[in-house]
Structure formats: structure tokens, C-alpha cells
């Protein structure tokens, strides 16, 4: 059930309304049932995997707390990690591994192993597996106490707004809110209004910008041989906006839906394209995943505590694993690797600058022009890496890059999959997005700003937003109902 589907249009109000009128003691169970129904609408069999992940991590949490001996605790953490990562591995990476083995063996002149499991990848498996694992690790570290109620814990793992594409919540935030669900204020007009506004903003990002940009990106990347440098560059830039609005839009809908029901989910994006370095980009992009990898992989590997070389190796490991987390394919690994190289190069540059006291003049250090320049360079680097992400394979990346560097033909902008009206709407949507991000970047909030305005202004804005989505959204007949890109991860 997609957030931008008719089904969700009925599902969400019904679930929320019943959640509000239901006796307090039944609220957790109700949300759990709704969440499983939501997840099973893709494929009922998926529920077995999420239930398995829930039960193993729940039991490991209880047992870790119960056992005194450190070795027993370690054994339980390892068991939980192995079981959950094995599920993830089998369903997500088995075919990738078999394919790679087959390719290697055929290159070595050995008999090719042409075996595939062809298992259906359950949506959001990487998200809920990481969320569940973070709980086990937090209990092991003593950061939180083990949850004693399986219902509450199961809801933490499967909470439908963030189940299939995050944010990857920590038990310290979401589980704590679920534990206090009985004490939640039922109806808060301002909270519900703001939640709905956030959902509509997310839908605008997804339906008006991301899915419209995808028409162009799919057309150009799918037929790259017919286009030259300029068109491919435009498609690459628009892909940056597509993926931001697709994932950011999803996150906003998820956060808005949770807010309507009285839950607060973590912020996953913080104007990522305003970053002035790659390091900063990763503090603004998919924040929940970045912090997960920092807390549960980078720091345990030693972080920056064990020398420069080890730090660089750790960065490399984290980003390659992050690439692999996104998808079982070499082009995702390459995408992660490129970001690791960016980070290492950036780090090295800073060290050299510091070492040789090559400081920028103090008065220009924080100037607009300097930040703009750095921001544009960062965007260009990120956008180059997005080509690896958007392509279907490494050979596709190679073909696109070769075409970019060898063909400089220019065709009409209306031959790129968008007509005049769609171009207008896309550019208008991107302008609105940038304006909103600029306001947020200055520390203000569009939502707060809106709430401070007169009724006529607010309502005009709400009506404009809703009708913009209804009239100009890419959905319904004539368009494929687009999955959110991150659902596949």
C-alpha cells in the first residue's frame, strides 16, 4: 500500500479515527494490527519475516538483560545479529552473491554456476532489520531496558508510517513513545493540522516533483544513446531532485502521519543540497541511516581513534556497506565507494590545509560566495555519484558517462519525456522546494511561519497545496503508480 495510493487514502483516516476513539488499552494492539495489515498488503508472506525478526530481537533483548555473564550476553547479541542478517542476506544478497561467484568462476575458466534463488525481496527489509538490530545492540550496551511487552515491541518494529522506508528509529525515541501510548493526548488540533500539512507537503514533493522528474530521467537514462551531454547532465541534475523529493517526500508523509497520531519521528533530511562539504552532506542526508552506521559500525570499528589509515579504512568500510545496504548490485557499491573517496579526499585536503597553514582569509571564510562555491562543488560531486545510483548496472553507468563525454548533440527539451506543461510544473515545483529549504536553512520553519499568518492566508496556502497535488500530481490513469525509490532497499 503506497502512501500515494487510493487504498492509503481510506486506510489512514480509518486507522487514525479508530485510534482516537478506541479505549486507551487497545490502542497499541490496534496500531499493530493496522501496521501488519499495511505491510501484508504487499504480500502476506512478508509478515512471517518481520514477525521472525521481531521475535528474535525481542527474546534476545529479554535474555541479554536477564543474563549476568558478559560472554552469554555477547553470545545472544551475536545470535540475534546472525539470524537477522542471515534473513537479510538470503532475501537480499543471495542472488547477488551467486551471480558474482558465477561471474568470477567463468572468468577463471571454471564451470559457471548458473544458479539463482529468485526470492522476492520483501519491501523495507533493510529498514526494519536495522531498526530491530539497533534495539538488541542498545539493550546489550545498557542504553535502554529490554521491553517486556511483545505487542509494544512488535509495534516498534512494524509501526506503519516508517515501516518500509524509515526513518530508522531508535528504541530511545519511538519505543519510549509507544510505551507511553496510554498517556498520549488524544486530540490536539494544532498537532493534527501540522501533521496533515507535513503529509501534504510530502505528497507534493513526491507527486508533483519526484514523479514528474522521473518521467524525464527514465526517458533519458533509458534511451541514453539518443541524447548528448546536455540532456544527460540535465537528467542527472533532475535525478538529484527526484531522489530527494521521493525519499524526503516519503519521510515527510511518514512523519506527518505519525504526528497526526501523536508520535514524533526523527528528522531524516536537513536541506542536504545546501551542504558545503561531502561530510556535511551525510549529516543532512538520510540522517537516521548515517547515525546508525556511525553508532553501530564506524565507532565499533574504531572510528578515528586508531590512526589515520585505520580511520580511512573505516570510512571505506562504512560507505561500501552503506552502498550494499542500498542494493545488491555493484553500482550501489561503487556509489558508496565514491562517497568514501570523497570523504577521504576532503579529510586529506583539510589536513594539508591545516598542516601548511593555508587558511582562507578570515573575512571571506564564511562569506556567501565561498559557501555558494563550496555548495555548488559539493552538489556537483554528489550529483556525479547519483549517476551510479540511478543507473541499472555498472555497464549502464559506463555507457552513460561515455555518451556524455562523446556526444554533444542538442535536441529539443520537449523530446526528453516532458511536454511544456510538465516542464513548467517541474521547474515551479523545484523553485518552491528550494524556497522552502532556504527558509528552513535560515533556522525558520515554513510551518511555523504559516501558523502565524491570518486565516485567509493559511487557508489559501492549504487549498493551493491540496489542489496542486490533485490537479498536477503524477498519478492515476496514464501513469504508473510509482513506488518510492527507497522501498526496494
Amino acid at each position: 500500500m503506497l502512501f500515494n495510493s487510493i487504498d492509503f487514502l481510506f486506510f489512514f483516516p480509518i486507522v487514525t479515527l479508530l485510534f482516537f476513539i478506541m479505549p486507551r488499552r487497545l490502542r497499541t494492539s490496534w496500531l499493530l494490527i493496522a501496521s501488519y495489515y499495511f505491510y501484508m498488503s504487499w504480500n502476506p508472506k512478508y509478515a512471517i519475516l518481520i514477525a521472525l525478526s521481531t521475535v528474535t530481537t525481542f527474546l534476545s533483548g529479554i535474555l541479554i538483560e536477564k543474563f549476568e555473564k558478559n560472554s552469554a550476553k555477547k553470545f545472544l547479541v551475536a545470535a540475534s545479529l546472525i539470524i537477522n542478517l542471515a534473513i537479510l542476506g538470503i532475501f537480499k544478497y543471495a542472488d547477488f552473491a551467486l551471480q558474482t561467484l558465477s561471474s568470477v568462476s567463468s572468468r577463471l575458466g571454471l564451470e559457471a554456476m548458473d544458479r539463482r534463488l529468485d526470492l522476492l525481496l520483501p519491501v523495507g527489509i533493510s529498514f526494519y532489520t536495522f531498526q530491530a538490530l539497533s534495539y538488541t545492540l542498545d539493550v546489550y550496551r545498557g542504553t535502554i531496558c529490554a521491553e517486556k511487552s511483545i505487542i509494544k515491541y512488535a509495534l516498534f518494529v512494524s509501526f506503519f508510517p516508517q515501516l518500509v522506508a524509515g526513518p530508522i528509529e531508535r528504541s530511545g525515541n519511538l519505543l519510549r513513545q509507544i510505551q507511553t501510548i496510554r498517556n498520549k493526548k488524544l486530540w490536539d488540533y494544532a498537532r493534527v493540522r501540522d501533521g496533515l500539512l507535513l503529509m501534504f507537503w510530502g505528497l507534493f514533493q513526491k507527486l508533483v516533483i519526484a514523479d514528474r522528474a522521473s518521467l524525464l530521467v527514465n526517458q533519458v537514462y533509458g534511451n541514453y544513446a539518443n541524447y548528448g551531454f546536455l540532456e544527460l547532465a540535465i537528467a542527472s541534475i533532475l535525478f538529484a531532485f527526484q531522489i530527494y523529493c521521493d525519499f524526503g517526500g516519503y519521510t515527510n508523509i511518514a512523519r506527518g502521519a505519525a504526528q497526526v497520531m501523536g508520535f514524533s519521528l526523527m528528522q531524516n533530511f536537513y536541506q542536504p543540497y545546501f551542504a558545503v562539504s561531502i561530510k556535511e552532506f551525510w549529516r543532512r542526508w538520510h540522517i537516521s541511516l548515517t547515525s546508525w552506521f556511525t553508532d553501530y559500525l564506524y565507532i565499533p570499528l574504531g572510528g578515528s581513534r586508531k590512526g589515520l589509515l585505520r580511520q580511512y579504512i573505516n570510512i571505506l568500510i562504512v560507505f561500501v556497506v552503506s552502498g550494499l545496504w542500498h542494493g545488491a548490485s555493484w553500482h550501489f557499491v561503487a556509489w558508496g565507494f565514491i562517497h568514501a573517496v570523497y570523504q577521504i579526499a576532503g579529510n586529506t585536503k583539510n589536513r594539508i590545509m591545516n598542516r601548511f597553514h593555508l587558511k582562507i582569509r578570515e573575512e571571506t571564510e564564511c562569506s556567501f560566495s565561498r559557501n555558494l562555491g563550496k555548495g555548488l562543488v559539493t552538489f556537483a560531486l554528489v550529483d556525479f555519484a547519483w549517476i551510479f545510483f540511478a543507473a541499472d548496472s555498472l555497464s549502464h553507468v559506463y555507457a552513460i558517462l561515455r555518451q556524455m563525454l562523446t556526444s554533444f548533440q542538442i535536441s529539443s527539451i520537449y523530446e526528453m519525456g516532458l511536454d511544456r506543461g510538465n516542464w513548467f510544473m517541474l521547474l515551479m515545483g523545484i523553485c518552491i522546494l528550494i524556497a522552502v529549504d532556504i527558509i528552513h536553512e535560515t533556522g525558520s520553519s515554513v510551518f511555523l511561519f504559516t501558523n502565524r499568518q491570518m486565516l485567509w492566508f493559511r487557508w489559501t496556502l492549504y487549498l493551493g497545496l491540496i489542489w496542486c497535488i490533485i490537479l498536477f500530481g503524477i498519478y492515476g490513469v496514464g501513469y504508473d503508480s510509482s513506488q518510492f525509490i527507497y522501498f526496494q532497499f
Partner: protein
Amino acid sequence: MKAKMKHIICFLLFCGLLVGTGKFFRYLLVDDTASYTRITFHEMYEQDNIDVLFVGSSHCDQSFIPDIFDEKLGLNTFNGGTSAQHPDGSYLVIKEAAKYNEIKQIYLELYFGLARHNYKDRTELTQFYIIADYLRPSIDKTLYLLSISPKEYYSNNFILARRYWTKFFDADYVKDVLIKKNTNAYKNYEYISNGTSWYYGKGYLANSEKDAVRDWNFFDMRNPSTASLGDVSQDWVDSLEDIISFCEKKNIQLTLVSAPMSNYHLVRQGNGNYDKYITTVQNLIAGTDVRYYDFNLCKETYIPNSSELFKDAGHMNYTGAKLFSTLFADFLNGEIPENELFWDSYVEKLAHLEPTVFGVSYYDSQTDNDEALRHCEVIATPDMNLEYEIILSPAEGEPYKLQDFSANRFFTLQPDEHGTVTVTYRPSSSPKETATCNITY
């Protein structure tokens, strides 16, 4: 409590504004200035009381003239037929009309061409929108809009402006729509004629006499399917049963009627088995009070198979509709006995005709070598053991004989070929009785 009330009022006001904005966008983007159903349903709501309602497809709205029935029956009749109106659409119109009127009698026109249609296969929805767009909001209408299509069409079904969103950026289009909607004709629900048809009133859409079929020897495309006419879809049966039970419940007399069509249309489309369709309908209403009159079984002395009465192979023009409406009203008044008006079957009707070639139908296909081919079939009175000689006279080139006298009725052409095909035919039992039919292709 006060705050809650304020929020509820605000919410309702906002919903009202949302709907109002939708209506504004509809006014701006939807060009319904040439829609006759907008006028039909406006008039339907304006009637004092409709005693008799006609519903059905274009064969209904172009064949039943309410003024004639009003005069002859002394009742207020109304034609709620619309182009390609399926039985579920008829059911909606019936329910809507029954809400505001004490209907005594409903004539449901049945066109066999819609009977095999499965509702889930619907992709082109214009014929459904021309009904729903102009009916008042109701639960029936909502259920209809939910049932006419798969889910991905819902936004278009319910939000009219969404269908035309691309026009939002076309200033000339929007300006043109606003100008047309700002005329008195539009505001007063006057029909803007397209030159060949005009809105006559009370739901009847007239076709000019000038629009009579120019070439009665037809050459037109058909569906290559050879499915039997007796095979009707379950959806069609279900909708018909819904209408029957609704009329029973409301104590409305229901009568099924098929309007006259050309023999070419019936023989071609029916693959010679139109009687199977009649039998299917009769079986469906067996044991009910519903009657069925099929005017395709009407004797030629009452409705001749003449180009003067039709605008095309399937629809009557104004002259034909006048003749048919008068005849039907006289029949309802008991002035003409049923057994005198109708043959018992279509086969019987054809058996009383002289051997005739009605025209040629065709469908196009691609060969394995990607070569386009036009498959033609001579449409003639069936079961008469005719032999055909076929001569082609291309627009460019010399005439040549395609086949000597033979029972074969099939031949092929190139789709881009044009000219005249001359079919000379004779009964195999009497080779000297030949007749000729020239068909332009």
C-alpha cells in the same frame, strides 16, 4: 467545548471551500459547451413529472421522440438515453429519475453491441462521464463512479478538472472555454448544433434528414471476433436483473425495446445469428412481467430497410425516428396488433427478403512479414445459396475480376487501395437471375 465547535465549523468550512475550488477549476477547464447530456439531465430535473422514461444507448436517444409519444399516449415522456449507455448507466438514470418522479413505465432500449461487454475491461470512460457528470451528487452516483472503472481512474471519475489538467497551461483554451460559458446559450442550456444533429428537447437528439446514409451499400470496418451474439456478459445480465428488480419494487412497468437498425448492421455484426441474442433476452425475462419488443423484427411494410430512414448503419435519422416513434406509439395504443407488426424471428424476416448484397465489411491485419492486409467479406442475405462474382475497379488502374461466380464471400485488399468493388450475385439454383451491387472502398 467552544474550541471543539470552532474546529468542527472550521473543518466544514474548509471542506466547503475545497469543493468550491474544485467547482471553480471545473468551470475553468472542462469544456462541456457542446454536451447534449448536460442539457438532457438538466431538463430531466426540470420536468413536472415524468410518466414514461426511455433509457438506453444512442439507439435510444436518436430513435424515441418524446413529443410524439406525449401527443399519442397523453403522458409526459422523457428520453434519458445517452451514447453507448450500458445497462448500469441506465440503472443509474432510472434510479435518479425515480427519485423525483412517479414513473409509470420505463422503456429500456437494448443494443446487442453492448451486451458482451465486461465492466472490468473498461478503459475509455467518456460514455460513463456524460451521464455521471450531469447528475446531482448522490450515493447512487458515487457507487456508479466507483464501479465503472479500475481504481487508477478514480481521480478522473470524481474530479472533473483532473481530466483536463494539461489544459491549465493553455491560455487560449481556457479563454475560449470562458467565452463559450459566458454566453446566454450556455447559461440557458441551449444546444449548440454541430451541423448534423440538434437537440430536439426532452432528451431526443435529432439527426438531420440531410444526414441520410449516402451510400446504402456499406463498406466499413468490423470487429474480427466471431463470438456468438447469444454470449452476453454476466455484468450485463446482472445490471439488467438490477433494473428488473428495481422496477418491480417501485411498481414500474418495464419494457425492453430494440430500435430498428439496418439489415447490413444486423447481418454483419450478428454473423447471421441475431435470433440467438433475442432468445437470450427472452430467456432472461421469462417468468417476469417484463415485455420485449424488438423492432428489428418489424415487417418491411412498416419500417423499410431504406437509406432515407438512417443516418448510418445502426442509427435512425430524424425521418426514421418520426416514423418509428409514431409506429411504436400506435402499437402501444393497440392500433396495430403485435403479430401483424413483427415477424417471429429475424431469420424469418430475412427469408422474406429478395436475395440482397448489403455491403462489404472488413478488418485489417498484419502478416508475418509485416505486410498489411485488409480482409473483406461480402454481407448478404444469409442462407440463400448465393454465388458472387467480384470485380475490382481501383481508382488508379484497370478493372480486374477477382473471382468468378462462386459461393466464396471473402477476399483481400491492400489497406491503401481505393476504388469500387462490383459484386454481381445470383442464386445458385437460378444462374440467370443476377443482380449487381457497387460498393465504394
